[in-house]
């Protein structure tokens, strides 16, 4: 509790201590004295002033500033009205409960604010830098690119960089939600915001603080509350009209019925006071943004950055999802997936192929070298010649080796066994002898299949994949993952057209999301109803263009985010319906004289507190 909240608590306790005996005595009619002095009134004024002086003070001050429909003023009118019709006990109670409710409200809001900021507590406070052989702590802002920083065990990584010495396990959970620590060693890239586990790391800084991952994330999260959902905008508008309408209704209620049917003013003024107590739309104004804020917080705990509450709203209505293949559903890196040796060992086949391609910079050569794992003895290769569109002709251990596609084998007149596997096939021959083939393909991410399945379970009716790859490759991946529709052989520009066509198709029937790694994707990410980008692999441009960022590139998080979004929207709607229903009901009952001040106080602060507690559930959404 803050100091302010504590003072308020003491005031409430003090007022209650004074009020309760008075309340009891009043009930037993012990306060009716036969004197000229209004003892009962004066006695009740003691707790009234203790609990309500600041409200009266603020009401007067705010009126002088031209703020008429301010809640302090309304509370004053309501309680003065109650005093006017001699309901002293009620007027104190209304004030007291109003203050209790306000205190609780402020406490609940600061608690949830705290828990969200704890979750986002990824901001590093200092960086260690070596100066004259001694470690000095400096502000991460002061570090320049290329500086060497030292990160001790248990410290938060202050800036993005490359490890130049040391090895350790780092905890990336604050950024990605991933609980398994990541192993890093010399040459590994590390990102700021993570926590260094056990080892001492020396890191060369690659980005200045304001461009580092941690600064970017904090900025995104802070800006998230400025992009409001439709529901939020509706509530803001509603609040603007609600109070004046209720206050006018109260005024009419106090004046018209007594004039028309000649009943005493006091009876109708009391009813009008009930209106005034209910006239603050606080329950809605607080609980709706709080609900969205909690939902965004819950998503960020999963390693998903949602850039605004409007995106949660769209996410909950997503029916179609379009994936870019490479880098999103597949790893986007070529690896050797199969070896078909012909008369030689698998190891030998790979070794000869890697040697032949040893000088090439082609991705295929990279995959072969990576698969071979050992250091290549390049002195065994004496001559390499690249034959464009065919492959490579090289001299390995004095013999001519051919490595390339089927066309190369045909051109050289070598007999070979055609391979129909999906992917890029490299045929290998030594002199005129066929040695076998090697299949190189992009591998599907292990979680992709599950991600698609979970999306379908969460109400996505159509899954689409876009790829620049050949038809056979694209269709095979789509089939493996259970994707409904696939478009292949697309040029980067075609993707925008395809997404636009799909948007047209689903118009009015739910929203469309696009998931991409951001390489050439930025225009598509902006075009889709909701753009989802890969955070760790994606480019900065993609993260900027996207509405939702998956920090650990895990596509299964999309369905988690959908669940969080739906729960958030549900809670927000519950709050709106509940708050409005109670308020309208009490207003109606109040107008016909069936509700009193107690119900009115419940409809005001009671409803607020319940709505806040309900909204806080979004924080724990999974």
């Amino acid at each position: 509790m803050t100091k302010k909240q504590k003072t308020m608590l003491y005031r409430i306790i003090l007022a209650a201590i004074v009020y309760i005996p008075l309340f009891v005595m009043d009930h037993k009619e012990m306060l009716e004295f036969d004197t000229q002095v209004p003892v009962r009134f004066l006695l009740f004024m003691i707790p009234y002033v203790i609990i309500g002086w600041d409200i009266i003070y603020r009401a007067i001050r705010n009126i002088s500033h031209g703020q008429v429909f301010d809640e302090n003023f309304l509370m004053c009118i309501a309680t003065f009205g109650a005093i006017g019709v001699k309901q002293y006990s009620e007027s104190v109670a209304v004030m007291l409960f109003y203050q209790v409710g306000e205190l609780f409200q402020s406490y609940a809001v600061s608690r949830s604010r705290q828990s969200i900021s704890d979750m986002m507590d990824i901001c590093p406070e200092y960086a260690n830098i070596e100066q004259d052989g001694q470690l000095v702590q400096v502000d991460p802002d002061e570090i320049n690119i290329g500086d060497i920083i030292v990160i001790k065990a248990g410290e938060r990584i202050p800036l993005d960089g490359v490890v130049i010495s040391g090895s350790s396990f780092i905890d990336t959970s604050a950024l990605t939600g991933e609980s398994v620590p990541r192993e890093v060693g010399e040459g590994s890239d590390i990102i700021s915001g993570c926590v260094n586990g056990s080892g001492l790391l020396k890191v060369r800084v690659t980005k200045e603080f304001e461009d580092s991952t941690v600064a970017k994330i904090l900025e995104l999260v802070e800006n998230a509350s400025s992009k409001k959902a439709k529901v939020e905008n509706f509530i803001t508008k509603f609040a603007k009209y609600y109070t004046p309408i209720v206050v006018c209704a109260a005024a009419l209620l106090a004046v018209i019925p007594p004039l028309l049917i000649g009943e005493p003013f006091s009876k109708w003024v009391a009813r009008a006071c009930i209106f005034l107590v209910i006239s603050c739309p606080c329950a809605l104004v607080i609980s709706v943004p709080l609900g969205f804020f909690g939902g965004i917080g819950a998503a960020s705990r999963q390693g998903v950055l949602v850039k605004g509450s409007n995106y949660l709203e769209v996410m909950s209505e997503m029916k179609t999802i379009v994936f870019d293949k490479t880098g999103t559903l597949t790893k986007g890196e070529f690896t050797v997936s199969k070896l078909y040796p012909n008369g030689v060992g698998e190891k030998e086949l790979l070794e000869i192929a890697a040697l032949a391609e040893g000088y090439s910079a082609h991705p295929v050569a990279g995959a072969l070298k990576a698969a071979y794992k050992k250091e290549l003895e390049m002195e065994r290769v004496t001559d390499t010649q690249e034959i464009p569109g065919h492959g490579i002709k090289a001299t390995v251990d004095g013999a001519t080796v051919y490595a390339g596609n089927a066309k190369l084998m045909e051109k050289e007149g070598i007999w070979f066994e055609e391979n129909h596997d999906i992917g890029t096939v490299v045929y290998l021959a030594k002199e005129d002898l066929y040695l076998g083939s090697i299949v190189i393909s992009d591998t599907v991410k292990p979680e992709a299949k599950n991600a698609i399945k979970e999306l379908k379970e969460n109400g996505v009716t159509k899954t689409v994949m876009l790829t620049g790859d050949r038809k056979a490759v694209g269709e095979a991946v789509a089939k493996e993952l259970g994707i409904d529709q696939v478009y292949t052989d697309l040029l980067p520009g075609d993707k925008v057209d395809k997404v636009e066509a799909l948007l047209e198709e689903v118009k009015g029937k739910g929203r469309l999301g696009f998931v991409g790694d951001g390489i050439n994707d930025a225009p598509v990410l902006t075009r889709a109803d909701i753009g989802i980008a890969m955070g760790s692999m994606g480019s900065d441009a993609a993260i900027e263009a996207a509405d939702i960022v998956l920090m650990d590139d895990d596509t299964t998080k999309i369905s988690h985010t959908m669940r969080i979004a739906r729960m958030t929207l549900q809670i927000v709607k519950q709050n709106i319906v509940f708050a409005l229903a109670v308020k309208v009901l009490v207003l109606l009952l109040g107008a016909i004289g069936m509700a009193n001040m107690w119900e009115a106080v419940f409809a005001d602060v009671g409803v607020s507190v319940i709505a806040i507690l309900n909204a806080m559930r979004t924080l724990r959404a999974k």
Partner: protein
Amino acid sequence: MKKKFKMVDLDCANCAAKMEEAIKKIDGVGDATVSFMTQKLTIEAEESRFEEIMKEVVAVCKKVEPDCVIQM
């Protein structure tokens, strides 16, 4: 120019909405948000008159909620 300020003692959500609306009406302000949750004011305004505009912002906020202070 876009800038962010911390709001101290912003206690009421309805006031935050009122402030936001009032700030947006100030001449030279492109966009403004007052976030009750983060207790922050984000404002986009003409750079040449920024100081002047901020003075007006402080004045309108004082009018809505005198207890709330914008930390410069």
